[in-house]
């Protein structure tokens, strides 16, 4: 295919604005979909989890052919992940494109991820095609959303396309517009190979399948390639393109999107954002924008049954093959026994990993509350990165502590301005900017500690705005904070898995809440159990669980025996789910109790 007839593009949108449905329509209009797939919806989302949650986790490139004015065009659609946890992956997928369709729901208007994705696309120099989707719905406010696109994002009225992906309205025109407005890729097949990795997955039979966009040169079977960030060299086994599976071709040329298989054993060796070049005559500089992915959120994962420790290790290793952003190291908790401290891109990524471990690998987990990474400067001049509250140094040794901050954009109907500001203030936020998108809609830019955002910030935001606000954030580095370690003692023993790092001003309130919640969660036992919260060696809250005095089946006669047996069995089953901490049996929910706040 001539370069002039290739278009590489992506669809970007806020969640639920109709990205996947639009992709389905494209596949239909270009006859790209295998027949048996047509009945399914959101065909590009392959994982059960993606469909259930209605989100995209992995990139899903697909090649389509479209004929316009008797010319055949090759369109590469790169469907990108749709969540803030994966914004780096999104930015790399966008870097593989020349243009993007910005989809906005006609009933919702611009939301936080619309803005975030718009900015990412501009940073990558993409040509944007603004689309208002769902125009068939009764609640559609096409004129209003048009104004938002014009006033806030600087589009021209005649640029905006009106579409209903569900009804197929405007889809042909959109395909034509893609070809007309999005420029063909530039690049030179005669130059040295320069290709961007924008995703990868591990295939147990073939090794890593690298998703790539070739910018210059050609890659073909038998060629020696080099990963520029690691220097590793591989021999190419196969190249090809995507269309519901892998389709081998002779080569991938400058401007094309496709895959490379080169006997790579671990996804870590095909890092998203890295540049692939010719091992024999490498280019001097990699393509811009490469970053090593760093986990933002950590938690402890422990097997419910200690004999599942090895299963958990194996499952994590298998997941990691496909998910280089997942990191883990063994952790031995006094309370929960052997397990792993795991790092994630964000809380959604964490939930997905936990769910996959339980669902796909059958490992029952106890997860501790998530935390961020803290940077601790000690009095003796060391700097420690702490990803586990139990390893927070003794307060006497600490010079200062820094915690990660994020820039948060919140879009909310203007009637909730007061509530949003109050919420952010309570979460230690500082307001940077507030702008009207239109008279009814406001965008706030706040700086907030990440730790406050990962807990229940989004739920709270939704509840104070009756579900109307949307949220996006990006990291902006570490800032000094007055942080302390809040320890929880059960029957006098500090429980490592229950400690958290919190701002000093919040410590007492949180301590009181936590001991209260634990009091309700820990079943009464034969002895009194004091539950205490302490900061820097000082007890700041205390509750007592009185001893169990009575627990006995009453009447138990002939016919009853079977029924009563079932009752006792149930009671015993329940006990199995308790973790023994010293003398005290603690239910697993307790380890998450420290998460919620009133």
């Amino acid at each position, binding site marked *: 295919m001539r370069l002039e007839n290739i278009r590489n593009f992506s669809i970007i949108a806020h969640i639920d604005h109709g990205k996947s449905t639009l992709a389905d329509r494209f596949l239909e209009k270009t006859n790209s979909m295998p027949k048996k797939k047509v009945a399914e919806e959101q065909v590009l989302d392959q994982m059960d989890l993606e469909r259930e949650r209605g989100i995209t986790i992995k990139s899903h490139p697909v090649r389509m052919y479209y004929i316009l004015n008797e010319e055949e065009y090759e369109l590469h659609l790169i469907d990108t992940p749709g969540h803030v946890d994966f914004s780096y992956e999104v930015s790399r997928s966008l870097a593989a494109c020349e243009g993007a369709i910005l989809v906005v729901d006609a009933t919702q208007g611009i939301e936080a991820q619309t803005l975030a994705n718009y900015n990412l696309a501009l940073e990558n120099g993409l040509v944007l095609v603004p689309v208002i989707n769902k125009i068939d719905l009764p609640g559609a406010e096409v004129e209003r959303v048009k104004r938002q696109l014009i006033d806030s994002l600087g589009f021209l009225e005649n640029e905006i396309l009106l579409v209903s992906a569900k009804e197929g309205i405007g889809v042909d025109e959109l395909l034509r517009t893609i070809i007309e407005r999005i420029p063909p890729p530039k690049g030179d097949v005669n130059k040295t190979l320069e290709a961007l990795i924008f995703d990868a997955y591990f295939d147990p039979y073939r090794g890593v399948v690298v998703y790539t966009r070739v910018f210059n040169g050609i890659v073909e079977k038998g060629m020696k390639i080099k990963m520029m960030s690691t220097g590793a060299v591989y021999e190419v086994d196969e190249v090809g393109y995507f269309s519901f599976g892998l389709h081998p071709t002779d080569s991938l040329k400058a401007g094309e999107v496709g895959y490379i298989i080169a006997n790579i054993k671990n996804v870590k060796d095909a890092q998203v954002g890295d540049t692939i070049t010719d091992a024999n005559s490498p280019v001097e500089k990699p393509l811009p924008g490469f970053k090593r992915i760093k986990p933002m959120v950590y938690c402890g994962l422990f097997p419910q049954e200690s004999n599942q420790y090895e299963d958990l290790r194996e499952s994590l290793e298998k997941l990691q093959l496909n998910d280089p952003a997942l990191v883990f190291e063994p952790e031995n908790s006094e309370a929960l026994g052997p397990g792993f401290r795991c790092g994630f891109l964000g809380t959604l990524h964490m939930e997905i990993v936990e769910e996959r471990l339980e669902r796909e690998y059958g490992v029952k987990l106890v997860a501790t509350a998530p935390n961020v990474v803290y940077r601790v400067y000690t009095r003796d001049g060391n700097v420690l990165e702490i990803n586990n509250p139990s390893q927070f140094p003794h307060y006497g040794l600490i010079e200062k502590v820094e915690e990660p901050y994020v820039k948060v954009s919140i879009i909310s109907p203007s009637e909730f301005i007061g509530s949003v500001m109050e919420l952010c203030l309570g979460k230690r936020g500082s307001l940077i900017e507030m702008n009207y998108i239109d008279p009814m809609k406001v965008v706030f830019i706040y700086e907030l500690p990440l730790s406050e955002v990962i807990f229940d910030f989004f739920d709270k935001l939704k509840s104070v705005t009756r579900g109307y606000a949307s949220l996006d954030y990006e990291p902006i580095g570490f800032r000094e904070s007055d942080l302390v370690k809040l320890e929880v003692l059960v029957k006098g023993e500090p429980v490592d898995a229950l400690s958290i790092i919190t701002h000093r001003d919040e410590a007492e309130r949180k301590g009181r809440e936590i001991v209260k919640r634990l009091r309700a969660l820990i079943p009464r036992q*034969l002895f009194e159990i004091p539950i205490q919260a302490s900061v820097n060696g000082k007890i700041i809250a205390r509750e007592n669980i009185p001893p*169990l*005095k*009575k*627990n*006995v*089946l*009453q*009447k*138990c*006669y*002939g*016919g009853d*025996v*079977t029924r009563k*047996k079932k009752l*006792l*069995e149930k*009671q*015993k089953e329940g*006990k199995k789910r308790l973790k023994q901490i010293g003398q005290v049996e603690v239910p697993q929910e307790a380890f998450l109790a420290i998460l919620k706040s009133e």
Partner: protein
Amino acid sequence: MNKIAIYIHIPFCIKKCLYCDFFSFRFDISLFHQYTKALIKELKLNLNKDYSVRTIYLGGGTPSILPLDDLEDIIETIFKLVKVEEDFEFTIEVNPGTIDREKLKEYRNFGINRISIGIQSLNDEELKVLGRIHSSKEALEALDMAISVGFENINADLIYGIPNQTLESWRDTLGKTLKREELTHISIYGLMYEPGTPLYKALINGKIEPMSEDIEVEVFNVAQEILSKYGFIWYEISNYAKKGYECRHNLTYWRGENYLGFGPSAHSLIGNIRYSNTPNIKAYVELLLNNKTPKIWEEKLSPLEKAKELVILGLRLREGISLGVVYKRTGINIEGIFSESIKKLVSQGLLYKREDRIALTEKGRLLGNLVFEEFY
């Protein structure tokens, strides 16, 4: 000769109590006769002269609402079919709202020698909360009537843990009941909120407040103190008797010995086999009148299951259970299998062990479930 206990279920009530989740039918006179016919058929199908009967228990429901003619037919049938041991125990449960002197006299004439009266409480407010059909006055009158017609083995059922019950009202109920020195047996049950009952619903909807555990424990202790003053000894989790008046029928259950149950939802145990009848009265009647068995469920206990059951039921008794006897009856060495649990329970002060016998301690009596569940 097979020694057995016989349980006869009379599944009718004038009105269901608000805490009751047993299967029972509203009062329906046309059903009584049909039911009696079916019951007699079941008795005839299963009983013969190879059985030597130690105890008969007429339970419910409310056996005392059955017309005397029907009751007489049932009892005569049993006596004709089986041998009865000389000192056999024959109990009928009665509701104070359903009896009179004549009825009680007839019961005596039928050979019934033990009467169990559902007093539950002698506080009218509490009786109302429970949904009982009788007043406290009628309850005491029933007790006096039973004494005056010559019953020498009398049980009273009492309930504690009733919403709004106080220590004073509990002392009052116990005191008034125990004043009758002819009383030989007391059953004391903590009120249970069984799912599906109106009382359970009221609890879930916050209309009533359950008694706090602390007060429950005090109520239990008060009962202990007063009962021992009157010469009652506790011999099972919920049962107290004067010496020699332990309920032999119920001991059959707790010792895992053989019993046959008749009537809908009645259970039977013969050796390692347990089975039960359909709970549906109409189905029960229909099946029997068409010469079919009402049995709908059966399980065979493995030796280990049987052994565990012997331990759990045996532990309900003050005497506890001899592990040697369990071994003899099942071939299972409980001590070998549960040595860790036994050690733990002894160290927690819930269980004691003398030679091969284990039993609940004073503390363990109120925390029996913690002990029982160890043996699953």
